[in-house]
C-alpha cells in the first residue's frame, strides 16, 4: 500500500476536518471542557509535528482516535489532575447548569473513561463493533465486553429508564 507524506496545508485541512469529532471524543472521555481543550491541543500538535506517513484517510482517523484516547488516559494519571479533581467536578456541574440536567448526563458523567470512549464511538459516531476494533486496534470481543459493561453501568445508573438494547 502506498504511503502518503502530508504537506503542512494538507495537515491543516485534516485538523479542521476532524476537529469536532476529536473534541467531542475527548470531552466524552475527560468530561470537562478544560481538559478536553488540553487533550485536543496535545493530539493535534503531535499530528502536526509528526513526520510519519499515513496509508489512507482511514489510517489518519484511526491514529487521531487512538492518540486522543491515550492522551485522555494520561490526563487521569497526571498528578495535577488528581489534585484538582474537586475543582474539575465543580466546573462540569457549572457547565451542566447551562444545560438541562438529565439522568443521562449524570450517568454518562460517572462512566469510567475506559468505557466512555467505546460508548461514544458506538452511540455518537455510529461505528460498528468491527470499526471500533479496527480503529482502536483491540479485539472485537474486548470491544463487545467493554460496550456491554458500559451499558450495564449506565443501565444501573438510569434504573431501566432508557432502553439500550
Amino acid at each position, binding site marked *: 500500500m502506498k504511503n502518503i507524506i502530508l504537506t503542512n496545508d494538507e495537515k491543516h485541512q485534516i485538523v479542521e476536518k476532524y476537529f469536532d469529532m476529536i473534541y467531542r471524543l475527548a470531552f466524552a472521555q475527560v468530561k470537562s471542557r478544560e481538559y478536553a481543550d488540553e487533550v*485536543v491541543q496535545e493530539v493535534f*500538535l503531535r499530528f502536526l509535528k509528526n513526520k510519519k506517513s499515513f496509508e489512507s484517510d482511514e489510517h489518519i482517523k484511526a491514529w487521531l482516535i487512538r492518540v486522543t484516547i491515550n492522551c485522555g488516559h494520561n490526563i487521569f494519571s497526571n498528578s495535577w489532575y488528581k489534585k484538582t479533581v474537586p475543582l474539575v467536578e465543580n466546573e462540569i456541574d457549572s457547565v451542566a447548569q447551562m*444545560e438541562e440536567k438529565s439522568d443521562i448526563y449524570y450517568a*454518562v458523567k460517572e462512566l*469510567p473513561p475506559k468505557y466512555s470512549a467505546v460508548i461514544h464511538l458506538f452511540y455518537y459516531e455510529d461505528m460498528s463493533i468491527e470499526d471500533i476494533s479496527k480503529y482502536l486496534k483491540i479485539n472485537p470481543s474486548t470491544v463487545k465486553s467493554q460496550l456491554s459493561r458500559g451499558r450495564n*453501568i449506565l*443501565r444501573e445508573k438510569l434504573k431501566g429508564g*432508557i*432502553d439500550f438494547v
Partner: protein
Amino acid sequence: MFRKKYKELIDQTEPNRELLNKIFEKAKTENKQSTKSKLYKFTARYGAVLAAVFILSVSAVIYTQLNYSDQTLIVKNKSNDEEIILKNEFDTEDVDITAGQEENVKYGETNDLTKEETVQNQSSEHYSYAEKNRTASVEPDLSEIKENKAIISNLESSSEDENQLIYSMLKDYFGEIDLETGNQFIFDIAGKFQSEDGQYYLGRWLWNVGDHNSLLCEFVIKSNLFEMYECFIENDYIIWTNSNNLLKN
C-alpha cells in the same frame, strides 16, 4: 432511547473553535524553535557522544586497574579465605527476594482483570468504581427483560405500500421534526422477518443533520403497528428486548 439522548447531550458541547488557531500558532512557533535549535542539537548530540566515549574509556582503565589490585589483594589474603566466604553468605541472606513476589501474589488476588484492563485501571481515577461495577456487570438484573433474536439473513424485502403505511404511522406518532433539536426525522424500513410472536419490520430512525443523516436507533416494529422496540444488530442477529415499547403511549 439512549442513542438519541446521548447525541443530544454531546451536541450541547460546542467544540471550542478558537482552539484551532491556537494549535496552528503553537505548531508554527514550535517549528521555528526547532529549526533554530538544530545547530545546538547537532553540537549537543556529538558532544554527548564524545563525552560518552571519554567516560567509557576512563571507566575501562579504572576497572582494569581495580581488578588488578583485587587480584593482588586475594593473593595477599589467601589465609583469610574462610572469613571472606562467610561474609558473602551473610550478604546474600540480607537480600529479601520474596518481597516482590508477595506483592505480586497480593495484587493477583485483588485484581483478576486482563493485563490491558489492569493498565488502564491503574491509570484511571475510577479504578475502584470500575471494579465495584464490574461485579454488577457480571450479574445484570435481566429477570424482567425478555431478549429476542432473529437471524438477519431471514430478512425479506417489504412492499412499498407496507413501508409507506409504517412511515406515515411513525410520522403521525413521532412528528416529522424533533422538537428538541429541530432536526428532521427520517424513517427507513429495511425489510420484514418472522419472529416467534409474529411478523416484524426492521428499520432505522435517523436525524437529517444538514449535510448528512445521523443514526438515532435501529428498531423493530410489529406488523400490528402497536409495538416498536429499539434493536441492536450484532453479527448475524437482530437483538431486541420487550422492555420499552416506543409506541406505548
